[in-house]
């Protein structure tokens, strides 16, 4: 198994910064400057807890979870006539799209994503070799490629298990922190 790069180093640096930046950019576009109560937040505390838990226990499923959430809200949006509610639902859709993009976004649309970060961190010997469509690999080559693919998937799984909980942990904590600061009723509880 190839050695994973130092998790503490990346999470304390670039990756952690990306997690915070994603939340801040989202709130800049879809957040209100002030909320009357937590129930007005675009994404509820329990949904954030759900996201965090999936990132910790089933990191490979975060993107499909976000996609599923997005579709559910899109269905609701189709049936909604009230403009204010439509805006709320659009903010929710944007959130889940963002989460999916953070997981598997590809350039040029997404200049950065965890999938791209994973590819970059991958040891060169595990990277996929592009072969011409006309090339006919020998049986030995096919076996070697199969073996490399298995190792690559194993490495990607291990990478996600290390990085996703840390990345989405930071992302979720920052979201709750930023929204709590903007929420009147939690301040009133004080």
């Amino acid at each position, binding site marked *: 198994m190839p050695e994973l790069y130092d998790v*503490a*180093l990346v999470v*304390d*640096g670039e990756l952690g910064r990306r997690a915070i930046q994603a939340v801040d950019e989202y709130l800049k576009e879809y957040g209100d400057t002030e909320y009357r109560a937590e129930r007005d937040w675009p994404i509820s505390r329990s949904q954030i807890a759900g996201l965090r838990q999936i990132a910790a226990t089933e990191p490979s499923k975060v993107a499909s979870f976000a996609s599923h959430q997005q579709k559910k809200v899109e269905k609701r949006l189709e049936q909604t006539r009230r403009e204010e509610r439509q805006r709320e639902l659009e903010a929710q859709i944007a959130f889940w799209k963002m989460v999916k993009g953070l997981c598997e976004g590809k350039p040029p649309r997404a200049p950065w994503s965890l999938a791209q970060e994973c590819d970059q961190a991958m040891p060169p010997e595990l990277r996929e070799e592009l072969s011409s469509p006309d090339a006919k690999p020998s049986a030995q080559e096919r076996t070697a490629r199969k073996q490399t693919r298995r190792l690559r998937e194993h490495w990607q799984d291990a990478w996600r298990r290390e990085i996703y909980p840390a990345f989405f942990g930071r992302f979720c*904590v920052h979201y*709750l922190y930023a929204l709590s600061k903007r929420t009147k009723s*939690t301040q009133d*509880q*004080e």
Partner: protein
Amino acid sequence: MSLALTPDLIHQADAFSEQQQRSAAQRLGRRLFEVFQSDKQGRVSTQVRNLQQMVISATRLADIEDFVKQQMGRGKGPCKEWRQVGDEVLEQLQGLREAANRLASHEGQRLALRLHLARTWIRDVVGAYLYAKAQKEMET
């Protein structure tokens, strides 16, 4: 990979803590006492002990920042108190992050230096908290 700190880097970090950070850390320690006071039995506040423990055991500065944000972002518990003092804690941690970036050029050393600075910082913070607590106890 995280790199070991050189004696020179440690010396520069300690000079930074003493000359540029200590008075802010002590002010924060006094502020923590104003906000959290002592617990009901007159012992060090659980929140201050938790912060200290977090700084001592953290493997990255981000964990300490996340701990403070988590306390501030809770819907219940001591979030009220944390919201009074948390942003100042986060600002000082950011100051440590920036100092580590200035002092070291290798990312691995920066990571280790941030933790070194944070541990010196929490000693000053808790020291000032305890001093404020002792003063209050002598008054009563």
